[in-house]
């Protein structure tokens, strides 16, 4: 069997099946089309890793906030304006020179939606779900990140309704940057723990 053919077959099947499901549920008055539109638009435009980046930058620039964030993630994140589904209790994990945290959900793909949006494909992949807990350093190499052997790697398997987010280290050479500029350099992957925030290249 060609996996290509197979997937192609599946995708059009899924599209037709989704149309049928939406059509029937609308017809029976169980769902409203505009509500579905809203959900799509919300996750495409309003909720995404830029939320988490704002939280990270506030923690980098406000030591009191950082303290609150690490002690009570959910309420500190609410301060910045982010709450909602898949974020009922958020725990923030601080990366340091000695400790590197990374998050996985081996059983499905639990992820802190209010701060990071919907999970990327790699986070939902069998490869990541199976390997992150047993060979995290090898996985990080797939992402181009090679950690010093002295760094303690801490993997968080997100199996409950608690959601985990990583607070990456602030890179050197960023002292003169504005909050807006800092937000730009905090990538999604650094808040899952499979990347670090790189120092901006000096032009």
């Amino acid at each position, binding site marked *: 069997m060609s996996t290509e053919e197979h997937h192609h077959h599946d995708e059009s099947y*899924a599209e037709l099946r989704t149309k049928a499901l939406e059509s029937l549920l609308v017809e029976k008055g169980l769902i409203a089309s505009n509500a579905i539109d809203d959900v*799509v638009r919300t996750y495409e435009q309003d909720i995404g890793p830029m939320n988490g980046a704002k939280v990270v930058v506030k923690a980098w620039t406000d030591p009191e906030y950082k303290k609150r964030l690490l002690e009570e993630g959910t309420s500190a994140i609410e301060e910045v304006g982010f709450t909602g589904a898949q974020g009922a209790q958020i725990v923030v994990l601080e990366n340091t020179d000695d400790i590197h945290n990374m998050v996985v959900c081996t059983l499905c793909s639990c992820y802190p939606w209010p701060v990071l949006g919907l999970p990327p494909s790699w986070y939902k992949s069998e490869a990541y779900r*199976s390997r992150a807990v047993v060979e995290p350093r090898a996985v990080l190499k797939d992402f181009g990140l090679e950690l010093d052997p002295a760094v303690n*790697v801490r993997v968080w398997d997100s199996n409950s309704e608690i959601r985990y987010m990583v607070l990456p280290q602030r890179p050197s050479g960023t002292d003169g940057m504005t909050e807006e500029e800092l937000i730009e350099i905090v990538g999604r992957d650094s808040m899952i723990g499979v990347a670090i925030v790189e120092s901006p290249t000096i032009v």
Partner: protein
Amino acid sequence: MNGIHDMGGMHGFGEVTHEENEPVFHESWEGRVMGIRRSLVKHGIFEPYNFRFTVESLSPSEYLNSSYYERHLRATENGAIAKGFITREEMDERMEFFRQNPDALPERREDPKESEQIQKITFMLEPLHRDTGATPGFNIGDVVRARNINPQGHTRLPRYIRGKTGIVVKYYGNHDFPDIDMNGNKSEPQPIYSVQFDAEELWGASAEKNQLLFIDMWEGYIEPA
């Protein structure tokens, strides 16, 4: 259940591939599935553990051959059928209609109130803590062993943790207990802890050096070591 979804520690799935500038949804139907699922919450079929159990109950080959949203589509359909909202026959017929009419779209029903309700779910903070009066049976620093349970129903205790010894590092309060037995029965909320395991305890000589694993354990999942 000891299902295909419980893949922590499995080999053979290849490298992790990373897509640059990945869109939120790769196909528009994926977003519709997400929206339909959220819209059905109010009809009681998508309590999180029930929904996950429905996903896990796909056959192992179906599970592996499906993408994340394909699994959700199948589980949503199966859940809606189990609730009696639709039938498989209706789905097959309607799908055939869309196959033969590729330009047709699902009819629309507009309901501003429903939008409001759904947006509330999306943005609402609904704390997990349950005031049961239950006091935690374990203290920070306690050495505990994950129980060797192998239920056919739903559980959030993965196989790779069972029988392994770790240390309680945090008490998170009392949360709903996720396990669902084959008759659909659930238990009362329980204390839940963050438990730390040494990678070598989990994987023996195959473990990478200098690694810890943290996972959330409901009280029923652990016993004194």
